[in-house]
């Protein structure tokens, strides 16, 4: 068994690729030397026990990690072949191309459903009202929320259920048309029905996006992902096609985690 993580052989140009990525909190590294590529129209699940660095890694992919005081990243992350950590790259532009949905729904409480979805459009070029209407409608349909809210777009987003709020956050992230979608345990605070809706959604979204999902739920990883990457103690242990990872993992640690012996 080699020391390097067993990586998936790339059969296409990756949309996003981390190379020797190490994420630091001050002098401590939360993620060490991760090299991992994400293919277009593929769902990659990041799994591993709490504190294994999978969320930190995810937040390094859209430059959210560096917002924490004293946090920094070394190594490179290539988005369509260009390093998002290169000098002169504006993190704001990166975050517009790599969208993110968080563990807890975070609708903006002062905004209506419509305004929430349109929120990300405000920072770009000013669009005519009809175009914003069209984008909001499209994003809400993509997030499978349109039928439930189309008659109350201008009501407060807080009136929605938790699951609806999370789909609203997905719609808000989709509206500015990112290329990559990062989902940080998007179903962790939802009931099973809400979680199932999000999972269906992930299936739909991979037709147009590169999706990376952090999850604690191994059944979820098995259901929604094409590729699974297992993190442990800040390191990428193994990555491979999901069916193979869940049936014939090559590393003992992976097998132990997947079969529930730790984590």
């Amino acid at each position, binding site marked *: 068994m080699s020391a390097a993580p067993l990586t998936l052989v790339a059969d296409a140009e990756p949309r996003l690729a981390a190379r020797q990525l190490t994420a630091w909190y001050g002098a401590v590294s939360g993620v060490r030397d991760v090299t991992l590529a994400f293919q277009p129209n593929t769902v990659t699940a990041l799994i591993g026990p709490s504190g294994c660095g999978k969320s930190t890694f995810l937040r390094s992919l*859209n430059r*959210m990690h560096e*917002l924490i005081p004293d946090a920094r990243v070394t190594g490179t992350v290539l988005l369509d072949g260009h390093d998002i950590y290169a000098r002169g790259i504006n993190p*704001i*532009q990166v*975050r*517009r191309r790599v*969208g*993110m949905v*968080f563990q*807890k729904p*975070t609708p*903006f*409480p*002062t*905004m209506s459903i419509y305004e929430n979805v349109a*929120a*990300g459009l*405000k*920072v*770009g070029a000013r669009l005519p009202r009809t175009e914003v209407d069209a984008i909001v409608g499209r994003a809400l349909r993509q997030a499978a929320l349109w039928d439930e809210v189309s008659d109350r777009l201008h009501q*407060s987003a*807080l009136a929605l259920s938790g699951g609806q709020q999370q789909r609203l*956050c997905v719609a*808000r*992230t989709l509206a*500015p048309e990112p290329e990559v979608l990062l989902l940080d345990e998007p179903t962790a605070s939802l009931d099973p029905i809400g979680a199932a809706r999000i999972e269906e959604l992930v299936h739909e979204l991979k037709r147009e996006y590169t999706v990376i999902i952090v999850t604690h739920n191994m059944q979820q990883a098995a259901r929604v992902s094409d590729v699974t990457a297992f993190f442990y103690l800040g390191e990428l242990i193994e990555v491979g096609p999901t069916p193979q990872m869940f049936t014939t993992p090559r590393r003992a640690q992976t097998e132990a985690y997947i079969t529930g012996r730790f984590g």
Partner: protein
Amino acid sequence: MASRLGRKLFGAAMTGATYAAAALAILPLAAILAMLVAKGAGSLDWNFFTQPMVPAGETGGGFAHAIVGTLIIVGLACAIGVPVGIGAGVYLAEFGSGTLGWLVRFVADTLNGIPSIVIGIFAWTWIVRPSGKFTAFAGGVALAVILVPIVARTTEEMVRLVPNSLREAALALGYPRWRTSLQVVVRTAGPGIITGCLVAMARVAGETAPLLFTALGSLYVSTRLFEPMAALPLQIYVFATGPYDEWHRQAWAGALVLIVLVLLLGIAARIVTRGRRERA
């Protein structure tokens, strides 16, 4: 069983003591209101709100000049002080973790404790004396100086209450920091900030000392910012210390109007805060 009885008695006594303390705390407000209504309500009529004062010895006349003056001076104080106070508060909450933040916080707290007459003298030294005359503008500035630290500290507290997850959500959408602060954080903290502003307004509306050396007072309805201007506290002071019974009666009525104004601001603040709780 005796100890149990003792415990119950002790509990009852302490509960009673808190009730008594609560009653004692609201007693002054109740007493003030009752006295103002008893002594001042009789002089309140339409003329009181629409007519300026009349020369001593004549009957009739009102406090219109003082009411208009207070509205203008307090309005001016808010126009100057509210943007500065909110800006400083947002800075303190969102960016003020370093030495400068500590310094601003310290200065704001110190400013909060400075007697208002000192602020009046300050405004006199820096605005009235160089310009050579008493002006409503100087009064507005003096009140703004009192307003700023109150608004800043309330804003800071309200902005700190906004969950960090909302900031992250906005930043992840590609919002720059300043936009995140203004369009998401401040908007979310909005009702709390408005409440803080209303409370600060109520506080400065009743200030007398800073206006003595600045707005000075006036006998007429005036809307000119660079002339002396009447204000309710000033007019109450002049009439209450004057020699005529009619003046005394009108001073009571003026005090009643001022208290009601302050109460209304307080009630408005309550309503704004309650609206937020219902939505959240």
